[in-house]
């Protein structure tokens, strides 16, 4: 029984960094909105979207790289390449979704009677 307990403790110790991280960062909770930043020339709306596009593109490149390595025979991890592809696909869907929302709000504005 004591041995079983020490096993449990060691298992818990393995998960400790994850638990600590969750406690400290509370990443599972929606973050409170901080005060809106003052209009900063570096953080324009365009650069925000540009960053998003860049990150999505990065994911696509990672997926292409993984697939390339698989097809060239440098690795035999099919799942890595598939997971990377799924991830880049999801990121792209996310980007399109953001774009749709923006266009929609623009059209709402345009429809506003003056």
């Amino acid at each position, binding site marked *: 029984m004591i041995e079983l307990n020490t096993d449990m403790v060691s298992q818990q110790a*393995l998960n400790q960094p994850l638990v600590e991280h969750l406690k400290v*960062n509370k990443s599972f909770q929606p973050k409170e909105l901080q005060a809106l930043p003052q209009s900063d020339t570096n953080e324009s709306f365009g650069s925000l979207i540009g960053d998003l596009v860049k990150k999505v593109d990065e994911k696509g490149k990672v997926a292409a790289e993984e697939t390339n390595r698989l097809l060239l025979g440098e690795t035999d991890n099919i799942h*890595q390449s598939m997971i990377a592809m*799924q991830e880049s696909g999801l990121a792209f869907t996310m980007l399109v979704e953001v774009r749709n*929302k923006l266009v929609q709000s623009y059209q709402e504005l345009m429809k506003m009677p003056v």
Partner: protein
Amino acid sequence: MNIMPGLESTASALAAEKVRLDVIGQNIANAHTTRGPDGQPYARKMVSFEAKLLEVGTNSDGGKNFTTGVGIKGIKSDPKAGPLVYNPGHPDADEKGMVRLPNVNLTHEMVDLIAASRSYEANLQVVRTAKQMAQNALRMGR
């Protein structure tokens, strides 16, 4: 940006299951090998897994993110002796005509094969579900 979180541990489990499948394949392939490089009959190999901490990038505060993945602890040979059969015409027979066969039990290997295949499937299901969750979240706006 991590759209499907928690997949690093699943990916490590998939890689580990692939190693297990590889080892089972070796055992089945050598089920009738009576002589290895050391002159002994083939010994059945067993793979053992261990939980290990994986570092998965950094979070927004610059700290490191960790997850518990699967690693290969080692591949050990089964020390049990295989069955001894009488076959005097065999090139590896001793002076009494007995041949030591490998300790591979094909039935055991098939069961292990099923277990490995099912665990692989279970991990794939995790990937599928993670993707579906993200897709459902994206569909929230419609």
